[in-house]
């Protein structure tokens, strides 16, 4: 993730944009893909859950973090698509945003809570249709 000047987001170097897009989106896509291939080989009782850690930039813009916002919004779209398409196979695809509803200065204390929520997600029947705008 490469920060850009808040008033000049397009000054971001292409090389940085590409690298961060690979990290935030392309690799996430491959992970989602590989996960599905694996899920297909597991019994019905398996959790078959893929969770992407998104952030609030799905819905608002944070000026110095353009490429992070781009990557996470793009991946949120992939997640939403997968969630709908693979629902009947019992695969759960979720976009999880640990910062929603919490003050950003309390990042540390949300870790354990996020982890507990992920465990709950893995045992849930479905993730519902909330995958676009975060859990």
């Amino acid at each position, binding site marked *: *993730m490469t*920060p850009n000047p808040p008033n000049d987001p397009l000054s971001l170097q292409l090389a940085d944009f590409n*690298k*961060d897009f*690979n*990290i*935030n*989106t*392309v*690799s*996430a*896509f*491959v*992970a*989602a893909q*590989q*996960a599905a291939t*694996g*899920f297909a*080989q*597991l019994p019905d009782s*398996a*959790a*078959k*859950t*893929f*969770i*992407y*850690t998104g952030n*609030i930039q799905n819905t608002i813009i*944070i000026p*110095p*973090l353009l490429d*992070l916002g781009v*990557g*996470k919004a793009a*991946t949120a779209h992939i997640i939403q698509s997968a969630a709908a398409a693979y629902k009947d196979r019992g695969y759960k695809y979720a976009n999880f945003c*640990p*910062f*929603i*509803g919490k*003050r*950003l*200065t309390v*990042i*540390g204390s949300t*870790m*354990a809570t*996020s*982890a*507990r929520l*992920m*465990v709950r997600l*893995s045992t849930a029947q479905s993730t519902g249709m909330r995958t676009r705008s975060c859990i």
Partner: protein
Amino acid sequence: MSTTSPIILVFGAGPRIGTSVAKAFAAKGYKVALASRKASEANNTANEIHIQSDFADPGTVVNAFSQVKASLGIPSVVVYNGMYRFPEPRWFLSLSL
């Protein structure tokens, strides 16, 4: 043969979210695979393996799945934390959500 442990694979298993997730799932009987840039196989145990991966290269994701499958089995839970840490300029912290 229904006593095998389920497996979770966590990408971007940094010191914060990664280990929290690993702990929470391990408590539920999962075996854990953690993939990150700083992961070291030297830290592997019977129930937790570490896979060095740089996600700037999507090929490393494929490798990570191959390694988990070979060492522990097919993951039934996959968590992808691509980019978790980021700078916190003062104005960012003052945002009201």
